[in-house]
């Protein structure tokens, strides 16, 4: 057996040695790109699973305890049409993010925005959702024949000083009931004019996949938001945006049926 072990060692070393010849010293650039693309795919899949999971969890919580409370926007000009009180965590997160954004001089999420009415914010949400629904990159463009509802939740992260550019985490998903059948949870750059009912979306952009993702995030968003979008803090933002998207879908369904929406996150 010892002879055989020695033979195995020699064989493996021999084969590894044969490979060593053509091995480049550094990895081929194409591999780096391929790894980045695949990692982005995996990330998106994990995000979608999380969005779906959050939606299911939110539905259970909603049935048990959640109450939809219409009130002043808590997250700035592009914030949700009402505060989210299904979970204390979600509410705290929104408040905390708003406080952070307010402290940033380069962006304006100032106290004046708290004067926004929920109706104005809801109107803006609808306008933005309509703009995204026309974009084939978003779920509504993937399956226009589906009976599913295209719901969007926008977690406002910041805006330029003149409010021309808005920086949002958007969750736009197709919902069958409360189940996400496809969706997108991405940072979103918006170029807008006006506000409330008169808001006009002049342009929007989401970062590309793979190696383009990091570069696009840096290009589209202010430096102090780049880490937020590239790093761990997005987890809570993603969750809240997902809950808001579910609420939006429920409201649309209820509106179409002429009923009151069920408890939402």
């Amino acid at each position, binding site marked *: *057996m010892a002879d*055989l*072990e020695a*033979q*195995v*060692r*020699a*064989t*493996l*070393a*021999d*084969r*590894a040695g044969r*490979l*060593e010849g053509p*091995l480049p*010293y*550094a*990895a081929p650039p194409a*591999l*780096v790109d*391929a*790894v*980045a693309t*695949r*990692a*982005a*795919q*995996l*990330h998106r899949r*994990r995000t979608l699973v999380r969005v779906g999971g959050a939606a299911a969890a939110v539905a259970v919580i909603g049935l048990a305890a959640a109450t939809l409370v219409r009130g002043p926007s808590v997250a700035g000009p592009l914030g949700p049409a009402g505060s989210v009180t299904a979970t204390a965590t979600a509410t705290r997160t929104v408040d905390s993010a708003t406080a952070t954004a307010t402290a940033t001089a380069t962006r304006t999420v100032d106290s004046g925005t708290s004067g926004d009415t929920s109706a104005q914010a809801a109107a803006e949400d609808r306008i933005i959702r309509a703009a995204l629904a026309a974009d084939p990159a978003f779920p509504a463009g993937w399956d226009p024949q589906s009976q599913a509802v295209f719901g969007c939740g926008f977690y406002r992260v910041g805006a330029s000083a003149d409010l021309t550019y808005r920086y949002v985490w958007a969750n736009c998903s197709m919902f069958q009931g409360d189940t996400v059948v496809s969706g997108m949870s991405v940072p979103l750059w918006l170029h807008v004019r006006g506000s409330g009912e008169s808001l006009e979306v002049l342009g929007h952009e989401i970062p590309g996949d793979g*190696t383009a993702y990091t570069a696009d995030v840096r290009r589209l968003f202010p430096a102090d938001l780049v880490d937020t979008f590239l*790093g*761990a803090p*997005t*987890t809570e933002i993603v969750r809240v945006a997902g809950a808001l998207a579910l609420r939006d879908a429920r409201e649309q369904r209820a509106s179409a049926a002429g009923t009151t929406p069920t408890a939402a996150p």
Partner: protein
Amino acid sequence: MDLEGFVNAHYAQLLRRAYLLTGSRADAEDLVQEALARTWEAARGRAVESPGAYVHRTMVNLYVSRWRRRRLRREDPVAEIPEPVAGGARHTADAVGEVAERDRLWRVLGSLPAKQRAVLVLRYYEDLSEGAAADLLGVTVGTVRSQTWKGLRRLEAALGSRVEGDGRG
């Protein structure tokens, strides 16, 4: 570390190990790419204590769980096994015979179950201890021992029957 730095730091070692596991350069590259992507994605947004160890563990486990079927489907062509040269100088015949034996053993290694092959590569190429191999594979030391033994027994049996079948001793 950025992605390019991370890939460059681990690529060569990963590719060598992946090649010994899969037996195919193309499959090795696929396996390495998938392991690197999974590690990079996992490290995104949360702390991975040791990305280097993580990527190696991910790759070996990916191979054990998923790669075997692919390897069977797409194996590298095996070079003709050179016959010993009758009447040639003894050292030449020995060298040729040795190469033939290695090629034969390499092919038999390729027929082993994925876990047995992984254990043999980790133990006899990487020189990992039974404990380290067990840790990497996420199994017990006892499993590493038994898989090593089974792998060697299968090699021995396959090589023995080949040798008899070839009429060479």
